[in-house]
């Protein structure tokens, strides 16, 4: 008798062999210059349930450019495993041709050249068209938002997330989970959530004082779709009060709480759930580990680490779907649920090519209405990128956007060394483009963006780097917080990712003198996004804008070779 696991593996193999994931044909499409909306949306409707997943939009209402990482190191059991595969290795793994639309969407090589040909990605009015098309095939498809939605832009900051709430409401999601939303402060989060026309889920969102489940965020919600009883369980980002300022939402506690996740799965199964979906903001490696520990989840829709994977990853009997970030992708997962269990799936990671997918006029109108009051401020041109200078952020160690931000911190704040947080949000800018105020806000906007200046001893600076490195390279994913290594300006170092905390970072060098960092000496440090209450300084976006405006000629950065990575 064929087991459920065999069914799932057969689905996976069929997707790989017959291009069911939708990526196999792209190279040919490019050759025929026939990248069309119909081809992008082509999907042979399957089974009886459809899930639509979008996550980590970071308030990107409009089409943007977004370069995927060239460095994404996996450690421990995840060394060399997806999503820790980039560039040519990634293309080989998924059978993607160089220069094809999927190469542009999913890898970083030739980004600038391909950006010219394929243009911008994302835009929630294009996303709306994709969702409408899926709903035309399957009117009761579930739309699930993985969170990091109400953060990341000029308009989102100035409206305290209201622009995103208004536009997302037009898309009519069925449920959502959370991360950066909480950095709006708990009063504002509570206010929005109380008025949401869809479920705000998080089995791991607790009342901090009593360590009891928070009433405002139910653990799960049942949906009846295609004759199937579906339970969607929410999993918010586990380490919010650690990775973000906990003082902004002191009433809440989080954590992975996988024991409770198991209790919730058992509970919904006992209540008759035929399909259990986890809408997660754990990050991919944490989701993989959780899938191996918690039994009975059919599908994990994974967010937080911004990975875009053309095929689900199978862990025992759970499929994990990763849908990218910044509005660049939507995942569609069709499921065959019979006799109370998931028997097979068909999946497609749909890239939102902005010039190919027609915007939905209704949603365009809603987006424009949010932006209209700020149109002049957003559009103001502050500088340009040079003809060979792309600005991007993603990657484990440095991106050119952060190199520029660190330059701005060192020069505007008169520091020896600059630190810039290793966040994974923020669109890219191709070479030879204008840099607008909106572009600067897209990579800096947050509710705790004060650019501080402080003194640190060499010893403490080492502790900081070791602490952040362990958040990224601890071999046990449950001890990882997501995000990338803190970016540094004016400082060089060597990192051995295989070593334990305290031994990874060596050879710290002050670049302006070439001297080794002295543990007992004090250095002037400028940075931003401190999680500590009472941090003072000008907003980082003003610091970056002032620096860019002062440059004579377009922005051109020296290549950053200050970090030597060992053990990858």
């Amino acid at each position, binding site marked *: 008798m064929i087991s459920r696991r065999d069914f799932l593996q057969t689905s996976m193999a069929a997707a790989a062999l017959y291009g069911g994931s939708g990526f196999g044909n792209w190279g040919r499409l490019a050759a025929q210059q026939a990248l069309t909306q119909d081809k992008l949306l082509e999907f042979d409707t399957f089974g009886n349930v459809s899930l639509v997943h979008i996550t980590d939009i970071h308030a990107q209402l409009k089409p943007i450019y977004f370069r995927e990482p060239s460095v994404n190191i996996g450690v421990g059991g995840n060394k060399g*495993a997806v999503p820790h595969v980039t560039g040519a290795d990634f293309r080989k793994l998924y059978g993607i041709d160089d220069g094809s639309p999927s190469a542009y969407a999913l890898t970083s090589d030739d980004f600038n050249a391909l950006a010219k040909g394929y243009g911008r990605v994302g835009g929630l009015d294009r996303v709306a068209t994709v969702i409408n098309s899926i709903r035309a095939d399957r009117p009761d498809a579930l739309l699930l938002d993985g969170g990091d939605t109400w953060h990341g832009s000029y308009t989102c900051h100035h409206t305290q997330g209201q622009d995103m709430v208004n536009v997302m409401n037009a898309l009519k999601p069925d449920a959502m989970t959370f991360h950066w939303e909480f950095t709006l402060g708990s009063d504002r989060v509570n206010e929005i959530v109380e008025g949401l026309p869809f479920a705000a889920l998080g089995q791991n969102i607790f009342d901090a004082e009593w360590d009891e489940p928070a009433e405002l965020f139910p653990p799960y919600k049942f949906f009846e779709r295609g004759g199937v009883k579906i339970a969607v369980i929410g999993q918010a980002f586990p380490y919010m009060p*650690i*990775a973000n300022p906990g003082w902004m939402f002191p009433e809440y506690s989080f954590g992975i709480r996988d024991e409770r996740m198991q209790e919730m799965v058992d509970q919904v199964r006992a209540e008759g759930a035929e399909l259990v979906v986890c809408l997660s903001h754990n990050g991919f490696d944490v989701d993989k580990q959780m899938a191996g520990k918690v039994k009975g989840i059919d599908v994990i829709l994974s967010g937080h*680490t911004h990975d875009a994977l053309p095929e689900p990853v199978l*862990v025992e009997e759970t499929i994990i779907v990763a849908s990218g970030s910044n509005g660049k992708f939507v995942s569609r997962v069709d499921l065959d649920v019979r006799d109370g269990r998931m028997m097979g799936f068909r999946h497609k990671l749909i890239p939102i090519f902005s010039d190919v997918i027609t915007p939905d006029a209704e949603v365009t109108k809603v987006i424009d209405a949010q932006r209209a009051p700020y149109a002049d401020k957003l559009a103001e041109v502050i500088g340009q990128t040079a003809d060979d200078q792309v600005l991007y952020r993603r990657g484990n160690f440095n991106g050119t956007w952060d190199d520029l931000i660190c330059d701005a911190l060192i020069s505007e704040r008169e520091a020896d060394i600059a630190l810039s947080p290793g966040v994974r949000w923020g669109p890219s800018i191709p070479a030879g483009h204008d840099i607008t105020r909106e572009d600067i806000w897209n990579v800096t906007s947050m509710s705790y963006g004060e650019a501080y200046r402080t003194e640190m001893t060499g010893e403490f600076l080492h502790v900081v780097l070791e602490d952040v490195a362990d958040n990224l390279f601890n*071999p*046990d994913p449950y*001890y990882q917080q997501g995000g990338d290594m803190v970016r540094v300006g004016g400082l060089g170092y060597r990192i051995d990712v295989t070593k334990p905390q305290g031994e990874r970072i060596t050879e710290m060098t002050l670049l302006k003198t070439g001297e080794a960092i002295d543990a007992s000496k004090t250095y002037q440090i400028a940075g931003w996004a401190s999680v500590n209450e009472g941090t003072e300084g000008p907003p980082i976006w003003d610091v970056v804008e002032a620096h860019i405006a002062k440059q004579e000629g377009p922005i051109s950065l020296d290549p950053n070779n200050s970090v030597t990575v060992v053990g990858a």
Partner: protein
Amino acid sequence: MEMTRRDVMAAGAGALLIAGLPVRVSAATEDAIAAFTGGAEIGSGDISLTAPEIAENGNTVPIEVSSDTAASILVLATGNPTPGVAQFNFGPGAASRAASTRIRLAGTQDVVAIAKLEDGSFVQASSTVKVTIGGCGG
């Protein structure tokens, strides 16, 4: 090629089984354990310890211990200057042999729970709790 991809995925999933972290034990911890067990051997079994992987606040870390058959459970913070946290004793009529409390941790360390079971044997569970200075998530 297609099979290679499947193999890579299977290998990735298989390699997820991570060995338990070793328990780092200070002299003060060893003394506390010896005083509780009288030097008896400690196995694993009917004891569970629930603690966060990363503490939200090292000054007040919620933990929970439970066991169906424990007469007594000793909780130690092995990295604190004074490792002893609590000892919970359960009488034969105890309806529930579980306890939860909040503890203060001086830094990243293993929290250990040792139960003396009704049959006189000892079992233990441990959990690494990371105390971090905070970072920046994606």
